[in-house]
């Protein structure tokens, strides 16, 4: 296969693609540092959304007419694009969901049906509520046991403790690839090998990794990988569950309805094959197609260069924040992405977030849907700046200046 030579990454050019970045908030140029929560959308995705609803809107998988067939083809093409993007073996292994949370709930409900009382599910202390609560609910329903692998103060998994918690009873390791609060990149390939060695399956929460690194599910060898389109520069309301085909085949359907059946009588229903078995009802058609557009956009840019740029931004910001008295960065793992969570002595994160907002800077404050992690650090929350490849060093300079002003006002 020949590699297409791509233009080297250029942040000025990339920014041109994202109209939402060109606006003023309270009379200040917007600085968008809340990419961990959701990313902005490139023009090509916006155009695709507009085009779908203007010209191509039709239901899929059931029409004889031209538009329905065209929409079906595009939706299935998007599935294939996503398959190649994460290097899955087959398009059938790509299940469209509402997002990360929905994907995890699907696995908890369906794979959960294969488990019996006394089986164990292993998660970690840095999980998002979406990768905690569905397992708690499953454990309650089926009498399973939830184990939590602890972390150290830098925000890294303690591997020796993890090893101790993994046993023949472990049926599933459900772990975040990258922590949304700390930025920690977990050594998921190595952990997957360990889990497989005791016969456990592995679900990776890819909500924060899909947009920051090349994902190869074959190489990672995970059994499930879930992510949300909206954090990958695509529309909200759509996401993906990747699952290994043989495992998905063995799992019962999640929801019943149209599309997921092959034959229905009042006495008996037989189910459709993959991936449709897990896609009951009319899916988010425009969402799926436009997620495909977003993936196409990412394929067209120099992602290695983009990642290098993100790493530089993070290093630059951390370096500047280091000079602030009383500021503590929460999450100092050796291996981390472009997420900087911090606290400032004597100042509530909500106050910092409010004053930054009034200066045109969007950050997130609070517990970031990781309350157990806040309990571990004994803090009510953090202020979190999370960068995407379209952010710049100049924006970080302005952010640091605004932060200094805010802290001085609040002291």
């Amino acid at each position, binding site marked *: 296969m020949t590699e297409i030579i791509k233009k080297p990454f250029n942040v000025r050019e990339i920014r041109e693609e994202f109209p939402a970045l060109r606006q003023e908030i309270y*009379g200040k140029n917007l600085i968008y540092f809340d990419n961990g929560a959701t990313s902005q959308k490139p023009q090509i995705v916006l155009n695709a959304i507009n085009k779908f609803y203007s010209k191509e809107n039709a239901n899929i998988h059931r029409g004889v007419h031209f538009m329905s067939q065209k929409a079906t083809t595009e939706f299935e093409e998007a599935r294939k694009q996503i398959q190649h993007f994460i290097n899955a073996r087959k398009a059938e292994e790509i299940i469209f969901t509402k997002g990360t949370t929905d994907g995890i709930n699907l696995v908890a409900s369906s794979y959960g049906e294969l488990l019996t009382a006394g089986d164990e599910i292993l998660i970690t202390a840095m999980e998002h509520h979406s990768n905690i609560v569905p397992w708690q609910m499953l454990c309650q329903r089926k009498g399973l046991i939830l184990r939590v692998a602890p972390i150290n103060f830098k925000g890294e998994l303690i591997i020796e403790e993890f090893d101790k918690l993994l046993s023949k009873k472990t049926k599933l390791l459900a772990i975040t690839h990258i922590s949304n609060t700390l930025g920690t990149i977990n050594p998921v390939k190595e952990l997957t090998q360990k889990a497989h060695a005791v016969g456990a399956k592995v679900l990776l929460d890819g909500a924060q990794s899909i947009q920051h690194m090349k994902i190869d599910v074959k190489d990672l060898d995970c059994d499930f990988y879930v992510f949300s389109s909206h954090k990958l520069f695509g529309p909200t309301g759509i996401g993906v569950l990747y699952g290994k085909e043989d495992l998905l085949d063995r799992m019962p359907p999640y929801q019943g309805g149209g599309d997921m059946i092959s034959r229905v009588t009042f006495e008996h229903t037989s189910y459709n094959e993959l991936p449709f078995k897990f896609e009951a009802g009319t899916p988010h058609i425009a969402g799926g197609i436009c997620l495909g557009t977003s993936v196409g956009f990412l394929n067209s840019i120099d992602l290695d260069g983009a990642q290098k740029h993100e790493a530089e931004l993070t290093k630059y910001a951390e370096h500047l924040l280091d000079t602030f008295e009383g500021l503590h960065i929460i999450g100092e793992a050796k291996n981390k992405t472009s997420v900087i969570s911090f606290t400032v002595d004597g*100042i*509530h994160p*909500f106050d910092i977030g409010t004053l930054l907002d009034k200066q045109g800077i969007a950050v997130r404050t609070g517990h970031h849907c990781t309350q157990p992690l806040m309990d571990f650090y004994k803090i009510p929350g953090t202020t979190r700046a999370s960068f995407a490849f379209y952010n710049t060093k100049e924006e970080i300079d302005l952010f640091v200046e605004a932060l200094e002003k805010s802290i001085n006002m*609040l002291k």
Partner: protein
Amino acid sequence: MAILLTIQEKQDEIVSEFEVFDDWMEKYEYLIDLGKDLPLIQEELKTEERLIEGCQSRVWLNADFNDGKMQFSADSEAIITKGIIGLLIRVLNDEHPETILKTDLKFISDIGLQEHLSPTRANGLNGMIKKMKMEALKYIQH
């Protein structure tokens, strides 16, 4: 002796104070100063029952009833929140419960506070007002 202002005069006073400021950074600066002057609730009164629901930072409110009038004290982990509740206390302190219940807190919209708060904070503001009115309601029957 300080001149006693009516509840409407107190509101008007706040509105004219805020009119001086050009932008919201200045208004917040003022709110932060107000937060620093908040009549603080005693530490031992920071109980579960005195917590106000709907705030992103924790806010406690205590109400007392003396000589037919209400007195409030409060605290919060966030200073801007303290400033906001400080404004409410300034208006509602030393008023009869009946007055508190029937007063339209017009100064909030007049200074544009509600629109300039994040939805979570606006929610918290509503929670504060509700709690203060509920406290006043307790003393109406007496």
